[in-house]
């Protein structure tokens, strides 16, 4: 059974049909990419999957549970982590603190326990810190732990955001245009990183413009156009799909 299953998902904003009857599935342990021209509904699809928008019709099943219509925090708790197209780090917090927020779903101290500073919360805090540092180490930014997150360079901020998502130990990671704003070199590093993340057993769903990245790492590619799915194939097949070429790739790109 697929890890994530999307059935006939639709969403309309006013007069705009942002996502129309989209279905696909993501198998455990694969990297799946969603591509499409601007305004094709990729970000909307992402928001539907992560609970930031509620679908008008359709279903989303993650593991054994229906998650459509649930709030973002519930979806996060069920094991899906996401990043954002425009980096959203928590201002006035250090990089490490940012990442520790990622452990929120894996810890439980509440208002009362927090106010009373109960002994077990200290143990929990220690664990949160360790796991967060591990996540930062994995991305090679442990040395930045105590810098203010929003003062870091763009690439470093991307890394913080990613380690924050990883700190939650998700089963599935949603990446929204992770290569936006990176140069080719950095993009290549990112590609390696995503593969390494997959190798840790985390399923990855990625929305991306950068075709070189998508073609290189993904196992399957879904192509959206005007909210509709026009292809869902292996990368090589997509590259040759005439419909995809006509709406998206253009004739002589690369």
């Amino acid at each position: 059974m697929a890890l994530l299953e999307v059935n006939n998902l639709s969403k309309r904003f006013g007069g705009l049909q942002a996502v129309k009857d989209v279905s696909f599935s993501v198998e455990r342990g694969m990297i799946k990419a969603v591509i499409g021209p601007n305004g094709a509904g990729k970000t909307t699809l992402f928001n539907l999957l992560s609970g930031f928008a509620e679908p008008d019709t359709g279903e989303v099943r993650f593991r054994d549970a229906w998650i459509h219509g649930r709030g973002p925090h519930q979806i996060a708790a069920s094991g899906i982590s996401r990043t954002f197209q425009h980096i959203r780090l928590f201002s006035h917090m250090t990089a490490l603190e940012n990442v520790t927020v990622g452990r929120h779903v894996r810890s439980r101290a509440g208002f009362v326990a927090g106010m009373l500073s109960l002994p077990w919360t200290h143990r929990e805090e220690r664990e949160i810190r360790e796991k967060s540092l591990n996540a930062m180490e994995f991305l090679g930014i442990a040395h930045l732990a105590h810098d203010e997150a929003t003062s870091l360079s763009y690439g470093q901020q991307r890394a913080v955001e990613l380690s924050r998502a990883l700190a939650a130990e998700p089963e599935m990671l949603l990446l929204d245009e992770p290569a936006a704003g990176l140069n080719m070199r950095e993009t290549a590093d990112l590609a390696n990183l995503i593969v390494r993340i997959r190798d840790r057993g985390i399923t990855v769903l990625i929305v991306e413009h950068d075709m070189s990245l998508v073609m290189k790492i993904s196992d399957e590619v879904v192509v959206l156009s005007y909210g509709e799915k026009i292809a869902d194939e292996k990368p090589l097949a997509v590259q040759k799909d005439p419909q995809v070429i006509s709406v998206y790739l253009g004739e002589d790109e690369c």
Partner: protein
Amino acid sequence: MLRIRNLDAGYGSLSVLRHISLHVKQGEIVTIIGANGAGKTTLLKTVSGLLRPKSGEVLFRDKDIASLPPERIVFEGCSLVPEGRQVFAAMPVRENLLLGGYVQFKRGRSSEVKADLERVYGLFPVLRQREHQLAGTLSGGEQQMLAIGRAIMSRPSLIMLDEPSMGLAPLVVKGIFEIIGKLRDEGATVLLVEQNARSALRIANRGYVLETGRIIKDGDAADLLTDREIQRAYLGKDLDAEN
């Protein structure tokens, strides 16, 4: 047309640009490439007056514009298409463009604004179709066109573009670059900051490479395009070789 000498700039105590010197001649397209965070956007912000330089001079047609506020610099004929489009989201397309014509209006050439509007609609037919639509409801590519159109409305002698391809689909990016070429053909001078180094260098006459606030290389665009080091760092030519 534009000459920058020993420019230092940054935000607060943070220094981003160090001793930048460059120039743009009449009628050419000059591109500045560099990694994210190299200071490209800061450079354009400083030239356009959104950011005040710490030291150095910015000569535009031999006049020092370094300490002028942005609105004065536009009047001098130097127009910026900012990063992330920055259209007036809650206003219709047509009003966005008319606001671009503000400078002409103030110069006492309001009669020409109509003609300029037609010219922009000629360049971007899609904007004519969306004339009365709120700018914020346009797609990313259309917004970029609108932003460029708005800048053209001020009849700039130098037009600066900050990452026009950012966040756009490849097909749309192609269209945008075609238009930049068209602008050049019409005699405009362009200073282009781009992430997409290959497309930028293909269209440009000359280029500068910016790295952590310093210019590390400059030359003809064609030369830069074939420069091995640049290929490795910015064009991703050895992407496959590495793996």
